[in-house]
């Protein structure tokens, strides 16, 4: 039963990532072709462009949502692979706890960075 719950969320986050990371990838890698979201022109990763994008609150929010979804999706997927190697019950528990801690730490760090940069972009 628990697995049904976790897997349903895995699929749900997968769809969220599909949309958000799709936008992210188009911004970053099809910029030469499409040139979206690059107000300052030039490369998508030029400082001027990332500052311009970071001024939008929606971008910060979407980054945080994407971060949470991607961490969940990725770590659950990795857990699936590890579990299918048939580890003992104790190791399975350990993996569960470890991944939760890892996921939450990365999420907190990423969220802090996104919000901080939003503030920096507005200040500078």
């Amino acid at each position, binding site marked *: *039963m628990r697995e*049904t*719950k976790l897997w*349903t969320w895995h*699929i749900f986050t997968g769809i969220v990532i599909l949309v958000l990371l799709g936008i992210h990838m188009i911004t970053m890698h099809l910029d030469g072709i499409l040139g979206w979201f690059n107000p300052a022109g030039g490369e998508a990763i030029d400082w001027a462009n990332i500052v311009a994008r970071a001024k939008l609150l929606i971008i910060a929010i979407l980054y945080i949502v994407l971060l949470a979804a991607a961490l969940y999706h990725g770590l659950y997927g990795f857990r699936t692979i590890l*579990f*299918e190697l048939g580890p003992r019950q104790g190791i399975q528990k350990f993996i569960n706890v470890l991944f939760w801690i890892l996921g939450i730490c990365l999420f907190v760090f990423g969220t802090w960075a996104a919000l901080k940069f939003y503030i920096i972009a507005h200040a500078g």
Partner: protein
Amino acid sequence: MTRKLQKETDITFHIRRYNPDVDDKPHWQKFIVHVEPGMTVLDGLHQIRETQDASLSMRYSCRMGVCGSCGMLLNGRPALACNTQIFDIASKALTVASLPNFDIVKDLVPDLTPLFSKHISTYPYIVRDDADEMLNPTGEFFQSPDELTEYLQFTYCIKCGLCMAACPTMATDPNYLGPQPLAQSYRYTKDTRDDGFNLRKKVVGGSHGAFRCHYAGECSNVCPKGVDPARAIQLMKRELVLDYLKLRKHRTKSAILGKPEGVKRRPEIPEAPCFTKE
């Protein structure tokens, strides 16, 4: 399939032998078999046993693809030995080994016990709460032909274990239920006479259940009866997810049709025998 007319010829059988009394590990042994068109792999193995090595062990009984005893790994692919023409898979040599993902008892005999115990763990029978009706039926349950088609395909399973041998998840996770038990759990869940989904979902939705399947699709490729376990597993996942989201439609289990009225038993038909099992 167009089959080339083959002339009789000698074919080398590479057989993976293992004798628990003397061997620590399986080893390969070569036999030359004179093959005529129409011979199945099982026929070839019989010939080896009769004319070359009487100690070769394999399991079979019906020799016509019905009992599911003779599953083996033929040229690296799980198949029924009695259902496979030698000339279909070999022109010079072929390899025969015990079904992988099952322990070897001896030579070509796999230990299918895990398959059966996992199968039983998914409640592969009609589960209802009206125990009285089940023991002393008053009529037959209603089921339409369309409702029958929804699960009929999955009833053809002969428990041969080929799907379990082909499954990549089974290759590493011995506790995974596997395609056969999961397909059967769907077969009973979909049966309109059944009401056991809430029991089954605990096993099938557990951490060794349906979600360990990622649709590599091998089980359906090798199944000798066209059961298509991969399809059943995906449909089972759908039921589980719908149930989790509380979107699963409630289904009333099929009604009991009353006994036909106003008819008399023909005198030459004897009474049904009484229960043989408590």
